[in-house]
């Protein structure tokens, strides 16, 4: 059975969109060490995305390329989780603007990395040898991302009243978006059937244990959630993805095939 390309795009788009978001901190980090850390996390994520896009291009053949996949697809063609495209702050009304909030950044990186260490770990046994090789590298990198985000989650949660309140607000805001992890999209279903993907549902108890353990150590509470489940991974995105892509893609589109 052939490798489901949409599943590889889901993994690649997750990595590139979060990599682009985290890179917004470059030059604006709260402290120099964190500026460097986020830039390094972004480099890893963009590196993972490149390897995955290269694998997709290889499978598609023709004139498919990593650049075409990253820069010349529009928002509805992206298959990333909605969680990863949200700006670095809580919900706003209308045209309101806000500063980037580091608590939001850390909580998102924690929730996503906690999932991805499990996903990459499982994907090392994927029937697609190309994906298995990428997973074997990515699991090592993602372990460090998780370690970094978890440290800050605990430090801020168990820190001052201000840091506790901000990181709790970020947990309350972002946790509902993680419900999207546990629904099965057609691409995921096909990839699981082909033994290319891991069944994410089976990873949920381990993810819950990781999240609950970290939240407890950080003296944070886990919100209950019942409501709308986002569907970014089937191409139904929030209004934020278009702006993110506009910034990421504009240069490549203004100067196609440009080199320096």
């Amino acid at each position: 059975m052939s490798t489901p390309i949409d599943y590889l795009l889901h993994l690649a788009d997750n990595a590139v969109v979060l990599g682009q978001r985290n890179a917004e901190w470059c030059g604006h980090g709260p402290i120099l060490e964190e500026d460097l850390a986020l830039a390094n996390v972004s480099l890893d994520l963009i590196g993972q995305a490149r390897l995955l896009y290269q694998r997709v291009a290889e499978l598609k053949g023709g004139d498919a390329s990593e650049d075409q996949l990253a820069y010349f697809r529009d928002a509805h063609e992206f298959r990333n989780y909605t969680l990863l495209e949200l700006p670095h702050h809580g919900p706003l009304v209308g045209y309101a603007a806000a500063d980037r909030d580091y608590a939001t950044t850390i909580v998102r990186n924690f929730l996503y990395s906690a999932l991805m260490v499990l996903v990459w770990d499982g994907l090392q046994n994927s029937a697609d040898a190309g994906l298995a090789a990428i997973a074997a590298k990515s699991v090592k990198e993602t372990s460090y991302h998780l370690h970094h985000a978890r440290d800050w989650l605990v430090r801020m949660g168990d820190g001052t009243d201000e840091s506790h309140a901000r990181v709790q607000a970020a947990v309350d805001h972002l946790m509902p978006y993680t419900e999207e992890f546990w629904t099965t999209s057609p691409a995921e279903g096909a990839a699981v059937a082909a033994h290319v993907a891991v069944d994410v549902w089976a990873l949920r108890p381990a993810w819950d244990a990781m999240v609950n353990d970290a939240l407890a150590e950080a003296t944070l509470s886990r919100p209950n959630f019942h409501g709308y489940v986002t569907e970014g991974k089937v191409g139904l995105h929030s209004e934020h993805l278009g702006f993110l892509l506009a910034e990421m893609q504009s240069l490549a589109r203004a100067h196609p095939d440009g080199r320096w």
Partner: protein
Amino acid sequence: MSTATERVWAALEALTDPEIPVVTLRELGILREVNDAPDGLEVVITPTYSGCPAMGQIEDDVRARLAELGVAARVVTRLSPPWTTDWMSDAAKAKLHAYGIAPPHTRPAPDVSVMRFIKRPAADVVSCPHCGSSRTVVTSQFGSTACKALYKCLDCQEPFDYFKPY
């Protein structure tokens, strides 16, 4: 090993890492194989971190050296088996230490249980490459590059990089 592959090994031996010029690509485990394939010579390299920005430079350096030598060889990037700091030679680790970078510890045996992700791993005890003290603390999980963490020595007060096990 054929004479042609020996010549290529000898020529590439001297190439160093663009970020850490005291160690060679071969010592780091980036330069993997030189093969005398039926369709010509082939040089196999493997990336360190997926996003390491030095990889493009490394590939260019290998190609330039081959061109200097007048050897027509393909440069192939292979991901599997994944690069690990355990491939680094003892000589390379000693050079890193002398350069002021604490060399990577050996990776623990792979643990198949998912439980290893759940608890926060204990921080490595890393000796200061300047004064040798083991009273050091991690300042940041990410240092000047993705492959290094930033540490500080509590005795000599110097900051230093630790090459993380990968």
